[in-house]
């Protein structure tokens, strides 16, 4: 199994925002934003949670530690 990364796909200057979204509201809202073709920066990557109550501080800090430029928790 050979996994090689195309450098274009991991441009170091690419901003990465991790958005933790509750699937009942914020994730559904993001879906609707898509339906309405509202544009936002592609740097936002949504991770679905069953409820934002699931989100703990350690996980947030760890995402920063890994290099996330910003984190959003929406729910």
């Amino acid at each position, binding site marked *: 199994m050979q996994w090689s990364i*195309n450098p274009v796909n991991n441009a170091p200057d690419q901003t990465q925002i991790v958005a933790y979204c509750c699937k009942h509201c914020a994730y559904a809202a993001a879906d609707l934003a898509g339906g309405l073709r509202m*544009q936002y920066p*592609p740097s936002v*990557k949504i*991770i679905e949670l069953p409820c934002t109550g699931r989100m703990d501080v350690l996980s947030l800090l*760890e995402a920063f530690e890994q290099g996330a430029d910003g984190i959003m928790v929406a729910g």
Partner: protein
Amino acid sequence: MGQNSIPSSSIDPNTAAPIRINPNGKVGSVLVVGGGISGMQSALDLADQGFKVYLVEKETAIGGKMAQLDKTFPTNDCAMCNISPKLVETGRHPNIEIITNGTIHHISGQKGNFSVQIWQEPRYIDIEKCVACNDCVEVCPVIVPDVFNEDLIQRTAVFKEYPQAIPNALAIQKAGVAPCRDACPTGQRAQGYIALIREGRWDDALRVIKMDNPFPGICGRICNHRCEDACNRSKVDEPIDIRALKRYVTDKVYENPREKIEPVEILYPDKKVAIIGAGPCGLTAAQDIINDGFPVTIFESLPVAGGMLRVGVPEYRLPAEIVDREVQDIVDLGVDLQLNHRVDDLDQLFKSGFQAILIAVGAHEGVRPPIPGANLPGVLVSTNFLRDVSLDIFPDLGKKVVVVGAGDVAMDVARTALRLDAEVHVVYRRRAEDSSAGEEEIRHAKEEGIEFHFQTNPTEIISGSGDKLSGMWCVDTEPGTVDKSGRPKPVPVPESKHFLECDTVIFAVGQRAGLAFIPDDAGVGITDKNTIAINPNTFAATREGVFAAGDSIFGTAYVIEAISSGHTVARSIVRYLQGKHLEPERKPPLPVVELSHQDLQERIARGEVERKPRVPLPEIDAADRMDNFNEVVKGYDEASAMEEAARCLACGICSECMSCVFACGTDAIDHDMVSTEKTIQVGGIILAPGYKTYPAEKSEEFGFGRFPNVLTSIQFERLLSASGPTMGHIKRPSDGVLPKKIAFLQCIGSRDQNHSYCSSICCMAATKEAVIAKEHHPELDIHIFQMDMRSFSKGYWDYFKRARDQYGVHYHHCRISGILEEPDSHNLILRHPADSDPANTIIHETFDMVVLSVGMEISDDVRILGQQLGISLLPEGFSNCQKGSPLETNLPGVYAVGPFRSPKDIPESVIEASGAAGVISSYLSDVRFTETTTREYPIEQDISCEPPRIGVFVCHCGSNIAGYIDVPQVTEYAAAMPFVVHAESNLYSCSQDSIKHITETITEQNLNRVVVASCTPLTHQPLFQDSIRDAGLNPYLFEMANIRNQCSWVHSADDQAATLKAKELIRMAVAKVNKHSAQETIDVPVQKNALVVGGGAAGISAALTLAEQGFPVHLVEKDDNLGGQLRNLHIPLNEYDPQQLLKDLRIKAQDQKGLTTHLNSTVISTSGFKGNFTSQIESGDGGITSIQHGVTILATGGEEYRGPEYGYGTDPRILTQQDLEERLSKDSTLKAVPLNGSIVMIQCVGPAEEYCSRICCTNALKNAKALKSSRPDLQIHILYRDIRVYGLMEQLYTEVRDLGVLFFRYNDEQKPDLETPPGRVLQIKSWDLSLGKQIKFEPDLLVLSMPVIPHSDMNNLANRFKVSLDQDGFFLEAHVKLRPVDFSSEGIYMAGLAHYPKLIEESIIQAQAAASRASIILSQDTLKAGGSVAVVAQGECTGCLTCVRVCPFEVPIIQSEVPGVGQTLGAAYVEPAICQGCGICVAECPAQAIDLMHYTDSQLKAKVTALLHPEDLTLLML
């Protein structure tokens, strides 16, 4: 009953469901009519209890009115966020069959076993195939008002009502056949190509034309355009110039180089067809026949093809090149065209191998009238003359030509002769208005200098020198009696004979078919009019295999008829060759759309249609055209064509232009769908058809429809919605500007002469809309004009106070009588009394926008439904329900819920919906699970020891994803990821064949984890999970990457970025699914018993509803007898006597099998969880009974407040309403009160100042009415803040006022004051707001409307059952709108006064609802537990109680006997059967001893690492 009943023999056995009828005759299925929030709730409750549900909705999607709302009060929750999960649940429930576009026609049978006929209108899109990709919407050219958005914007004729609609499929709206199409013999879809021209889609427009007409360039010039004669636009101004538009688009496309047409494949080489005549009819038939795969040869006697089009119509009207091109398009299909080939013998054709012959020779023989000299050499006939000129043979006409006749052909002849340099006269025996020539033709001829001699009849032609004539004798005529043609017969005028000199006469008085080649023995019959005898349906001649069409059967006709008959005869010939019956099957026709003048006036008034004449066509000046054959009439230019096209009214809505059919990638569109009828058997019926809003344009004084800035409340709701027409921005329709000052006018269509009821929701809805608007723009100045603030439900009064005090919404007690508009600014002027002024001076105030709070009405459809089914309706249209069984209609087994019973808001509708489900299950319980199906899956494979083998399926979603994302590149990228053994892309991953393919691929490739990169998991995950379960995989071994809603759609401006992000999202999904493991669910057995606490009306009703289903019930009552507050009610509110009700309930409870009543008892402890509770009941004698039960219903009641306000308790003349009722029940005439005495009632006492106790106004009015009925002499004065009767109780308020009871309004600042020295006359002073004066009352009795308050021990009770209370001490429901009888702890439900003050009937309904919810658990043998739930690693637990404290559902417990960390006893435990999977305890656990399955720390971390460190992916996944 219904009039539209059909005999049962006409039921299609394939569509009738197999019915298993229980031996006792009951059927285990239920019909729910109406897919709004109540219909869905009923359907879900029943389906979850083991009944099959048919949910019939008249629209194309379920969701009802709630789907249109932006927010809901009093929580300001997003309405769609609340309803959307219900929509999905309803749509996916295996035992709910949704029938959209459905109506009920007829019901027969009885309670337990009804037979129902359902009529389903076609949606023209196959729900099974449609994947809702919206590709059809992109191409649909028809624009109509968007009803879901209350006509504020437009949508296409193919549509989905709203993005989240269920079924998730589009539909096509058709009103019928547009009159233009109906009038056209070929059925040209004029509306369709006009719409496409409006959009500048020339190729698409021509494609539409060519579907029905192979000669668009020709018909665009010379058609007699019946479409225009039928056009509805002529009722507005002038018909659309359809012919000119057709010509424009044809010319536009023909400007481009001609694309080569490929010959069609000949499928049946032996079945040759001969066509005699290459005119429009023969050519049309040739095209159709060869397109069906049969070889065609056309024999034409002339040297050119095109028939009359080519040799009968002069160049200046129809250039030959247009004809030649369109003929060539047909010949190029592979038709063998033999010119100069005259056919003389039909037998010879058959002998040479032709299987069928079409005679389409047209009518080329000119007619000469039988007058002397008609055959002289200088006399010509029209057909020969025009043909010769077309073939460049120019006869010598001499100087002066007389053309006889004044039809279109005569005009062609005259104008052609003129162009050959002759002086031309037209002689016609009738009047000018009798001429059959087009107006335009005569105008052109006159412009060119042709002289007309009307009412002139030639009698003899006289020869002259050589081939020339000297002239003709004529007589004048005058109109006589009307002849067969409908015109006055020309009668010769005596002594009017005169001579008209001329060199040539050309007859243009008719033409006929030249059938000389058909000998008498050919077996082909000829009519006495010298046309071929045919069957008019099939065009078959009398000889087998011979057909005839076109002018040779009709005589002369127009080109469009020739084309039409060509199509018809082609269909017959093909059927003949296929050996089928010649007569085609008839399809039910769609109605023709006739727009009435009134419809059109309304559309003009709404601004949808603007008066505008047709765009004129340019012409060459007469002077420039007489010496040549150049085309006289010019076509439109692009701008004019688009402008003219925009005038079309789109009468049929969908025009069947077929653009959607070409665009659809799943072949889901079927324009030929027809209505279907099916009959179902059901055991019970719930009617939840909902309401419609009052049409505000009926109240003309408010200018709705005329003043653009007057909106309805539901329109304003759409403006507020982020997914609405303005994306949630409040804009004035007139100028798109944010209004500064908005007025809401209440009771528009409620509480008026035509509406005897209160619509119940509008006060709160307006308040909510005001609050939300203020949240958008705090600077907005909002005024609400109302009569009373009817905030009578839980949390509503508080909400109102917040709106008034915190948000600064202004309320005025005033009903506005009309609106004026400032015409320039479109600002609106209201006239109302100044609030601050005690003299109530009238002022004029200007607003930027006015919102009309429109009330509820029952639609005509629902009234008709009621009548058809035999349901008794009130005059207002609401269902007239039975008083003892509040939800039941007059038909036993048929129930009414929601606004169909009376106006009401969402929670009450939901309660009634569950209540009706409860009542139905109480008599259908023995046939549960007889009609339901369970989905079977193969046994799950254990993959826990296998290395990951991941499959990735990337969806194109038509162009929705593939239009922006490089799908092949992304798929290739996915294929290279670690452990990914299979990656592929699909056009539509969710289409049925793809789903099956995924299942097969899992098996073939031995996959053990699957990623689908497509749309949103919220709608599609369950579908894909099913497909992997079908392959034996656990559903949790799955993950979705949302590359559509959250990638391609939102980054559509940047394809590269979208492609890159899609790769990242898939990478994250692959990393996470790699860490997924199978999640097991376990079955937990259910204790099929119930505990009901509280023996009032609610408790007894709940207990009965459950016990009747066969579930043993323990009913615990703390008093020594049953009845609760019902014991204190004596005066009926409606016809039902409360004490009789109490008696009935007690008897039923006593007799009910399985119902154990524990009097003088309390529940002292309870433990366990849903399905498995254990409780201890202590009886009065101290004995303790322990029971096990699956559910608990708390119906512990409330009581009347008895505080010291207004001197209560100090004077026997001061009573509560309950005291008064009690006294009236014993002494109905109140003997102690003197004649002409007086009574004062004060509303909103004590705690009711803080929350509205809902029922006090109704009780006061009820008692006042009883008093006035028995003692008309008494004066009754009611001091109130707002009269909060609601729904149909408004009628009681009206009645009481009519009885002479007087009402005085006070407010919180100036409450009434009791100034009574002890033992003296009672004295009350009150400031009356309407009069602006202090009023003094000296009543004989003072009656205080004391509110209902919760019992004092509610706190203890709440602690014991681990349930929550609201701020006023009542039970707190799980969700105030959608779960109004559930506690947030599962398995526990509430009913009655302990939830909130309510009327008896409402308590009973709520009890039935609680029983229904409880039955969902009790009807199951086991409950599923597990899946995505929190799991405690007990060995790491410190027993710190954090999880116990933070869980909102009170699930975690400490198991004191289980060792935690360091073997210390006491570790937390989360019961999987009730864990909601929110993960709050996981986040909060300081020891990190809890993890949430499927959302574990390592799984979430894998996503982040995969995103940020792709280089570590292999390491991460190992």
